[in-house]
Each structure stands twice: as structure tokens, then as C-alpha cells.
């Protein structure tokens, strides 16, 4: 880093919408945004918005965004002062954070040591328990003795899960709902585990029947200042992945919210964390909360917290990495209103299968309380190699009701043609009674919600058919002036590239 220079060159070791999001923060701070891209991403908008860019390899992530050597080479070639890992890819690899630090560059995230610690589930739980966070009640060590097991089971309470210590794939696992079933199921699990793993040791854990996934955003600088930015409710999930997040959680009471957020701050202090991070909790229907894991990086759903608190989380993260103090303290965090984020994925709405292909029509919503984070545009081809998320639409309202209504209108105004997306799923979720009541759990999709293709109104179908016929007519008679799959300049540029 040139001495006395305030303008930092920051490499974003990521792609897509999050690279664009981080670039904006970098530019607002007066720094220089640097990009990496794979050959499959040459036409991605994140390349267009960077000051300088470096190709890190072929399409598959393993040969590009996940290739540490290539990414470090990019940082060197582009003379970067700092590296922001975004989310996913190398963001939670302690060896990457270490390698960046070893190259005398600033890693925009926590220390490699903390990333490593939180990456190990068992170690993370033990550490966080010492830091004062409750864990799902259970035995800490393996048990084989039946009497001891029964004694422990009574302490934990029912329903509970019996799990094999050496386990995996559901073998040696039993759900026990009644005390009198326990002994029998324990014996079967023990025998199954012995046969499957050669290790009959079992552990017991309380089974959380109506789980909510609620997380707390924390921010900590290197001067010992730690602050939380309240919680996010992330229980709307499919295939264990979040698709809608909202804050504040409509389920938590103010009393528990305060307790939860304070516990998160306390734990963040205990582990000596700095940067932004998220502590994820499992919350049961009685509002008991248990530590699940800590994400030592920027979170996909950070925009909703930015909506309600007004603080730019990414800018704060960058400032902290350069040793600056937090720009605000707890008393400056006064959440206002309600925010909801919809993750728009290119996927089949019924089977949730990802779709790749060309976006032939793209138009995003706008207006008061509407934010769109996306890297796609009309004519953009979604590569097969990466995540299916193509946009995040987030909305803010003075209260939850206004946010929901605004979200509905924003989704109706969203045009994404050419591939299937989950926009119809979001629209239907916004009509779901459980969602509207705000007491939904992670089992919402599956138990209380099933996507059904909406019937088409006669009038709409008729209009659509007339429009389609006119389009076909102009194609046949006027040499194709409308609704054509146009041969874009981008494609021509690609061909020129290939001729070099």
C-alpha cells in the first residue's frame, strides 16, 4: 500500500449481485473496486462495474472463484490492498483469510483463527456455550448404558432425538415422542449404530418441534466495540435454504428479542470477533433460543437490516477492516418499520430445480421502499456453474402489513422472462395464512404451504394469445420486428473475442 495514500484498491473475490453490492460500498468510501471473473462470467454486470478486472479461470467455481492460488494471483496482478470475500466461495475458509494476511493484504472479515473456530461445528458449540449461549439441551458425550440414558432422557425431556455419535445418513437415529418408548428405541438405535459404524455410542438431544430460524446481525471493530443490529427471521426455507427473510421477526416478543440480541453481543465479545457476522439461533414455540452456528461473513439477507436500521453494513465492514472504529454505537441503532427480502431464483417453482438459460425479458420494480440487488439484465445468460439466485428484491414498510403489500406489488412489477423463476412462489407465499399471521416455522414450505400453478383467467389467456399471434404475424410478414431472439452485440463481441 503506497504510504499516505487513502484510496485503497479493494479486490472483491466474488461474483454476481454481491460483488456489485460491495463495489458500491467501495466506491462510496472513495476506494477502487477490483473484480475477478471466470470465463463464464465475462458478460456479468459485476465485470462492467469494476475499475479493473482479472480472469481467474474456467467456468466451474473449482477452477476459478474457489481456486485460492488464482484469486491471490489476481490480487497481486491488480495490486490490491485488500480482499473482500463476499459470501460463499472462499469467504469462510480460514486458510484463505490466512493466505491473504500472509500476502500482507487486508482481509475484509474476521481473523483466520475465528473463522476456523466457528467453522468447526463441535468446537463452535463448545466455545459459544462458554460464551454464554444456550445450546439445544442434550448429552455432551456418547452413552451406551441404558440406565444412564434413561436418566439423561428424563432430564432433557420429550420429544427427543437419539443420534449416533459416529452417525450420518439417518442411521442410528430415532425420534422419541413418549417416555415409555425410549428404552426400546434406544436399544434399536444402539444395535443399528453398532452394525453401521462399529460404534454403538449414542447421544440425546431435545427435539425442537416448531423451529424458527432467527439470526442476529453483529458488528464489532478491532477496538473492542461490539454492537448488534437486531434480528432477522429466516424461517421461510425450501431445501434448507432461505427464500424469504424479514425483520423484525413477527414471532419474537420484545423481551426475548432483547435477551437474544444481548446474548449475541456477549458471545461476540467472548470470542474476540471483529468485522460483521451473524449468529444463527433455533427458537422453539416457547421462544427458548439455542445457538446453531455463526456465519463469519457478510450475509445474503443483510439488506433488510440496512432497511430497518439505516446503517450500511458493507461500508462498516470495510472501515473496520482498515482499523477504524465503529461509526455508531448501540444507542444509534433505532430500528424503524419492517423489511422483507425475496430471493429471486431461476428455478422451477414446483420442483425447485435450478434453471439455466437466457433472460429474454428483464424489468425490475422501483419506487418508495423498494430495493433490487441484481446483476442480470435483458439478454444475460444464466451460467450453469453457480447459484440460481439472480436477484434480491427487498421492501420496506412502516409496518409489516405495508411491507407485505409493497412486496406483492413489487413482485407483480417484476418481469423475468425466458427462464422459470420462483416469483410465483413468493406471490403465493404472500397469500399464505400462516405467513400472514407471522407465526410460521421452518416447516412452512411443505407442511403449511404447497405451490400450485395459478389458474389463468379466460380474459388474460385470450389477450395473451392475441399478443402471441400478432407477434408471430409480424415475424412472418415484417421480417421479425418484435419478440425476436435478437442477435445481441454481446454475442458478436464474444465471437470477435473467439477470433483473436
Amino acid at each position, binding site marked *: 500500500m503506497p504510504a499516505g495514500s487513502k484510496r485503497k484498491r479493494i479486490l472483491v473475490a466474488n461474483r454476481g449481485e454481491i460483488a456489485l453490492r460491495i463495489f458500491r460500498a467501495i466506491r462510496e468510501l472513495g476506494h477502487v473496486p477490483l473484480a475477478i471473473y471466470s470465463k463464464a462470467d465475462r458478460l456479468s454486470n459485476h465485470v462492467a462495474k469494476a475499475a479493473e478486472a482479472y480472469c481467474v479461470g474456467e467456468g466451474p467455481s473449482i477452477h476459478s472463484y474457489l481456486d485460492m492460488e488464482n484469486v491471490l494471483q489476481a490480487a497481486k496482478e491488480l495490486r490490491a490492498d485488500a480482499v473482500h470475500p463476499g459470501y460463499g466461495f472462499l469467504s469462510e475458509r480460514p486458510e484463505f483469510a490466512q493466505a491473504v494476511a500472509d500476502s500482507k493484504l487486508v482481509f475484509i472479515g474476521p481473523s483466520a483463527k475465528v473463522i476456523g473456530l466457528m467453522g468447526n461445528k463441535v468446537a463452535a458449540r463448545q466455545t459459544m456455550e462458554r460464551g454464554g449461549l444456550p445450546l439445544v439441551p442434550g448429552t455432551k458425550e456418547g452413552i451406551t448404558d441404558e440406565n444412564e440414558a434413561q436418566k439423561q432422557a428424563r432430564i432433557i425431556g420429550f420429544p427427543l432425538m437419539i443420534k449416533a455419535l459416529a452417525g450420518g445418513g439417518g442411521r442410528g437415529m430415532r425420534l422419541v415422542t413418549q417416555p415409555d418408548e425410549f428404552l426400546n428405541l434406544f436399544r434399536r438405535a444402539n444395535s443399528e449404530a453398532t452394525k453401521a459404524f462399529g460404534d454403538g455410542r449414542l447421544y440425546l438431544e431435545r427435539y425442537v418441534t416448531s423451529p424458527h430460524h432467527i439470526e442476529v446481525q453483529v458488528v464489532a471493530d478491532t477496538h473492542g466495540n461490539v454492537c448488534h443490529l437486531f434480528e432477522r427471521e429466516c424461517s421461510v426455507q425450501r431445501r434448507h435454504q432461505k427464500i424469504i427473510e424479514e425483520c423484525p421477526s413477527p414471532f419474537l416478543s420484545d423481551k426475548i428479542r432483547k435477551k437474544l440480541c444481548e446474548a449475541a453481543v456477549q458471545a461476540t465479545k467472548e470470542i474476540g470477533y471483529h468485522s460483521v457476522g451473524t449468529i444463527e439461533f433455533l427458537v422453539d414455540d416457547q421462544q427458548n433460543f439455542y445457538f446453531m452456528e455463526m456465519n463469519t461473513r457478510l450475509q445474503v439477507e443483510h439488506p433488510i437490516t440496512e432497511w430497518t436500521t439505516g446503517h450500511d453494513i458493507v461500508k462498516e465492514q470495510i472501515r473496520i477492516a482498515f482499523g477504524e472504529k465503529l461509526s455508531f454505537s448501540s444507542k444509534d441503532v433505532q430500528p424503524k418499520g419492517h423489511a422483507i427480502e425475496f430471493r429471486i431464483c431461476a428455478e422451477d417453482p414446483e420442483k425447485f430445480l435450478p434453471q439455466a438459460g437466457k433472460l429474454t425479458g428483464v424489468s425490475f420494480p422501483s419506487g418508495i421502499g423498494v430495493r433490487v440487488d441484481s446483476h442480470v439484465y435483458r439478454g444475460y445468460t444464466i451460467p450453469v456453474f453457480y447459484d440460481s439466485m439472480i436477484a434480491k428484491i427487498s421492501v420496506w414498510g412502516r409496518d409489516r402489513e405495508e411491507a407485505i403489500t409493497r412486496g406483492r406489488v413489487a413482485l407483480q412489477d417484476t418481469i423475468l422472462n425466458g427462464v422459470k423463476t420462483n416469483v410465483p412462489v413468493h406471490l403465493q407465499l404472500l397469500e399464505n395464512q400462516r405467513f400472514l399471521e407471522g407465526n410460521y416455522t421452518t416447516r412452512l414450505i411443505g407442511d403449511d404451504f404447497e405451490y400450485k400453478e395459478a389458474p389463468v383467467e379466460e380474459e388474460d389467456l385470450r389477450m395473451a*394469445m392475441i399478443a402471441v399471434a400478432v407477434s408471430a404475424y409480424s415475424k412472418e410478414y415484417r421480417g421479425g420486428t418484435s419478440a425476436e431472439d435478437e442477435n445481441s452485440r454481446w454475442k458478436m463481441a464474444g465471437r470477435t473475442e473467439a477470433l483473436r
Partner: protein
Amino acid sequence: MLFYVHHNNQEYRVRVESRRDGLHIKFFDEREQPVDLVYYGNDCTFIHDNRVFHANIWGAKTDYIVWRPQGNLNFAVESEYKRLVGLLRGQDLDEQNNVYARMPGKIVKIIAKPGQHVKKGEAVLIMEAMKMENEIRATINGEILKISVKEGEAVETGATLAEINPAEED
């Protein structure tokens, strides 16, 4: 120009005509009406009885996707002309036993007789549609069971023209 629009296994007929005062639409057998429909890029707006219909439409060859926030609509569109050209090239129907009319027309001549063995692609009869004569061919090898139409007869889309008993595979 008549278009056959397919959606959810149903065929709809939409006629689009360019008149002096602009485009006219005739939906099925309804009265022909002028239509206020404009395209800009892939988007189009369509005003009917003051009601606005806005759509983003994408089409490649015969397949069309109309964006709708509640879920996209898929259509297969074929013009009368394209269908005819297809027939003239002998790209006949699906792999099925019966020979049927793919568009309205008039039977000009019957070539094959009941009881006759025909090979796939062999002419069965000649039909006139849109002032063009068009050889209707057998879609499979087999024996003509029945010729269901007479010379000079007018047929509608979907009418069975001939029935063929498939030949035993050797």
C-alpha cells in the same frame, strides 16, 4: 393470416389481418375487430375496452413464453401458411395410424383404395387448402382400412381422412 395457437393441449384459432386502419383480430368465429396493440422490444401493451393488458413476450420459432407474475404461459404458434408448407413437404402428423386433416380444406383426389397396402410416406389422397394442392401421405406402413372422405368433400381441422391398420413388424 390464420394462426393456430396451442396452450395446454387445446388449439385456438386467431386470425390477424392488416387492414387500412391497422391490425384486425378475429378470435375463433367471433366478429373481426380492430385491435390497439403495440410492441416495443419484447414488451407489448394491448388496450381492449379501455382495459390494458401488458405482456413481455418471447418467441423462438413456434414456441412462445408470455411472462406473467403468477407464472409464465407457454404457447406453440403455427400459422396456416407454415402448417401448409409442412404438409407439402410431407412432414405428416405424428406417428399414428389415422391420417387426419391438419387444416380445413377440400379433398381433390383419392389415390389409395381400401385394402391396399401402403408404405410410410406414400400418398393416400390429395387435399386442397389455401388454393394449394397438397399430398396427404401415410404416416406408417400398413393396410388401408377405410377412406373416410369423398372427392370434393370439405373437411375441418382434425377430421379423419383415412384409417390404416399397421403392418406387423418383421
